[in-house]
């Protein structure tokens, strides 16, 4: 299978201006994949931005009607569907993410996101106000200009959908940079956008690491940057945005999402929710804690047994962590966990090849333990017990993050009451929190600000212009 390694600029793959390259290897077996992925230098970023700016201000895209933009978005959705196998393969190779998950979730979801936003493209409405003071007043919503996105490596295609689709529906041009750990899938998307009818410069995919990201954050002609990644990098991006041109920034910075399980939780549903491990802190009512933790241990140990299988096999559900760097980082947290909490299961490496870590469960950590306070971004779940609802809420909110949360209970009143007290951007009741096309997804506190999905995200790629006619 051909591996794309060049930058996708102005609807074609082009050579970069620097000699720097990214090497990738397969985290399931440590075998090298490529040493040739280009790194976009400042000059390459300048070229891409110039192309995007021309496309936005003068090119045919600037006079596309909403329904013309919709047609392109629908076309690219269909092309993605047709090319799903290749795209999934390229994304799975360097990340170790099981191919079935990418096909059945990431790509499927991305296609739905494109179709959802295609439907908004011809429905962007402003407002008008009565002229009782002598002025006719019209508010129009217009695209911002050259927008950009930087994503983390855990779900590249999902981020392409979330960032690129609403921006294009609104009429912007977009430059997307995937994580340097997972660049191949995004590069492979480029030609599909060209085939879908997006004019040159409207959608571009570049690759690189910190420096490329920094060049984007500081660029004076980029009007918006949507970032998903760590808090420390997010803060640097906001700073660079302020120092350069005050570009609009949205930050999705991760979380330490709590799952609160009350004694009257629907048990099977609650236990099943942890097969996905989207929450990283489990708060369980003392009354049922022992039983509940035993069920989680069972699930984790079953998952552990199935790990190490070929991630290209459609039956494989669990993969390794993305690379050695992450592996060492997560193992570091696990070691700290062993010093400050009770290990119920897991805590070690699986096998001797690749970066597989056992799903790990810790109980009752010290309140200042890093496994309780910091985002680990690995298969580590930490459990604390509570007695009262107030205690649960207090524990849940005792974090610098505020992305998502979930509550398991049969009592609807309690569910709604607790949901209004949780400091989080999203609350799920009797389910893990999963994003929905129609509802805005985003965090508060140090999980960042701004939203993806829903109409909110579309509007965040637009700006209001007020027109007063005498």
């Amino acid at each position, binding site marked *: 299978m051909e591996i794309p390694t060049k930058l996708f600029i102005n609807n074609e793959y082009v050579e970069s201006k620097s000699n720097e390259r990214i090497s990738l290897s397969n985290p399931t077996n440590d075998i090298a994949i490529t040493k040739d992925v280009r790194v976009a230098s400042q000059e390459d970023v300048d070229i891409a931005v110039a192309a995007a700016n021309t496309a936005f201000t003068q090119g045919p895209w600037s006079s596309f009607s909403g329904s013309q933009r919709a047609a392109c978005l629908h076309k690219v959705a269909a092309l993605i569907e047709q090319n799903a196998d290749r795209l999934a393969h390229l994304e799975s190779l360097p990340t170790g993410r099981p191919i079935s998950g990418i096909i059945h979730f990431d790509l499927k979801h991305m296609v*739905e996101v494109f179709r959802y936003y295609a439907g908004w493209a011809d429905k962007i409405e402003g407002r008008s106000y009565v002229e009782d003071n002598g002025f*006719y007043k019209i508010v129009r919503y217009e695209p911002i200009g050259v927008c950009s996105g930087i994503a983390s490596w855990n779900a590249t295609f999902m981020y392409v959908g979330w960032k690129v689709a609403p921006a294009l529906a609104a009429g912007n041009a977009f430059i997307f940079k995937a994580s340097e750990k997972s660049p191949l899938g995004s590069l492979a998307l480029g030609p599909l956008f060209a085939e879908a009818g997006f004019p040159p410069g409207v959608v571009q995919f570049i690759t690189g690491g910190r420096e490329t990201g920094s060049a984007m954050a500081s660029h004076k002609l980029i009007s918006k940057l949507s970032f998903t990644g760590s808090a420390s990098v997010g803060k640097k991006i906001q700073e660079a945005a302020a120092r350069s041109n005050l570009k609009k920034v949205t930050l999705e910075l991760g979380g330490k999402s709590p799952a609160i399980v009350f004694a009257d939780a629907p048990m099977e549903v609650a236990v099943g929710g942890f097969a996905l491990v989207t929450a990283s802190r489990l708060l369980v009512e003392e009354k049922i804690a022992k039983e509940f933790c035993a069920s989680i241990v069972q699930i984790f140990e079953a998952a552990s047994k199935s790990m190490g299988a070929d991630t290209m096999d459609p039956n494989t559900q669990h993969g390794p962590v993305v690379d050695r760097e992450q592996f060492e980082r997560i193992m570091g947290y696990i070691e700290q966990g062993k010093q400050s909490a009770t290990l119920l299961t897991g805590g070690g490496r699986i096998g001797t090849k690749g970066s597989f870590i056992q799903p790990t469960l810790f109980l009752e950590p010290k309140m200042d333990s890093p496994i309780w306070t910091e985002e680990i971004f690995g298969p580590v779940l930490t459990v604390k017990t509570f*007695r009262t*609802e107030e205690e649960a809420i207090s524990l849940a909110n005792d974090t610098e993050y505020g992305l998502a949360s979930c509550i398991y209970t049969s009592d609807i009143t309690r569910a709604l009451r607790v949901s209004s007290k949780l400091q989080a951007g999203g609350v799920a009741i009797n389910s893990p929190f999963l994003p929905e096309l*129609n509802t805005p997804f985003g965090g508060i506190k140090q999980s960042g600000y701004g939203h993806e999905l829903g109409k909110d995200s579309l509007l965040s790629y637009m700006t209001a212009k007020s027109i007063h*006619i*005498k």
Partner: protein
Amino acid sequence: MASSTVQLTGIAGQSVELPTGLFINNEFLEAQSKSTVKVLNPSTGKLLAVVAAAEKQDVDLAVGTAKVAFDTWKTVSGIERRALLFKLAELIERDSEIFATIEALDAGVLFNDSKFLHVAAAVETLRYFAGWADKCNGSSMPISGGMAYTKKEPIGVCAAVVPWNSPLMITCWKLAPCIAAGNVLIVKTAELTPIYGLKLAQLVKEAGFPPGVINIITGLGAKAGQSLAEHMEVRKLAFTGSGPVGRGIMIAAARSNIKKVTLELGGKGPTLIFDDAELENAVFWATLGITAHNGQICAAGSRILVQSGIYDQFIEAFKKRSLDAVAGDPLLANSTKGPLASRVQRDKVLGHIQKGIQDGAELLHGGKVIESDGNYLENTAFVNVTRDMSLMRDEIFGPVAAIAKFKTEDEAISLANDSEYGLSSAIFTSDISRAYRVSDALETGQVTINSWGNINANTPFGGKKQSGFGKDLGVEGLDEWLNVKTVKVNLLPAKEVKV
């Protein structure tokens, strides 16, 4: 019982074969009473087809299947409805020339007008509303002691009674938002022009709509239309057509089950041409406004009010342009004027012309039948028409312009608003302030500035006063097919937790 078929021949040997039955539950059926209606070609007077005509028992059957279908259809997601509507749009686009052939033969619409305007608009409308299907959201609002939210829900079993002038496009104006909103629909096509409905029915099935979700029947207004208006299980009826029929539908709705009704009943569109109008542009649109499809358009600019300074130049150019029409077979590309939809319509229009002459209006041009086996009538215009004349007050629905001169802006507004109709209007001026001022003052649902008759899928269209109520197109058009349900959740105090 399964129905027979009809074959139509278009240009360049294009041939279309269609079933002639009532499309109910994804099948074509004969009317239970074997009732039929004859369909004539308005350009030749010849018989085109004999198709099944629905009566009360057929309507009952159609409504019954729609009700059953709704039980399952209401569980289908917005995303799936979106996909089906997109598929239907794609199929209509694929078969656009077939529809254009049918509309030319059956409705007297010029082939190119049908293909490039009406069918294209139908496709755009379907795509626009498809994109709403997964976005019918309500709101959430805090209330003391709890929380509340609204849901936008489909109404259920709906009906649309559609006219003969732009049959496919206006059908899609109803079908698209109705289905996007999650309803099921019975369409009653006009008995004058039922054939496009048979083709549309085939595509509904090909697109994959489950049986009963969209039924398409034709029949006499007094029978099939009335049955729908009176039906206890139809919860909404959308009607586009004449005022008297609309009134009857509203009465029948009130007498039966108080079903929701929207009415689009026609107009007497004023076109206002000010001294500072760009003349060529004004002449182009004003002429089109009263000659396109022989003025058989609810938004026709049938009253042309011209300011005195530009009057003489306008009249000369308007007359020249109006007479520059080539009457002929609507299938042929060089025809720029087709027939009126029926002999009855043609004679009604002649009647209005006679009345105009009797009332003392001055004939500028036209006024006579174009002799043929079809229903051709000259482009006609009267000048010095006063506000009390029938020519100024009554909707003619033919290629007859009533022209009057005005001096001041206020006079123009007063003349324009002196009407029981209020559908659409057009203003021609270079002065932006005047454009806004006058558009504000005009009592119509749509105002176009420096053009006439623009229809866009994302802008609501519908009238005031006796032009009816309710909107087609735009998000307002979607809301017509939804009910709002408010849900309030009372939050009980926390249960005591035993430690």
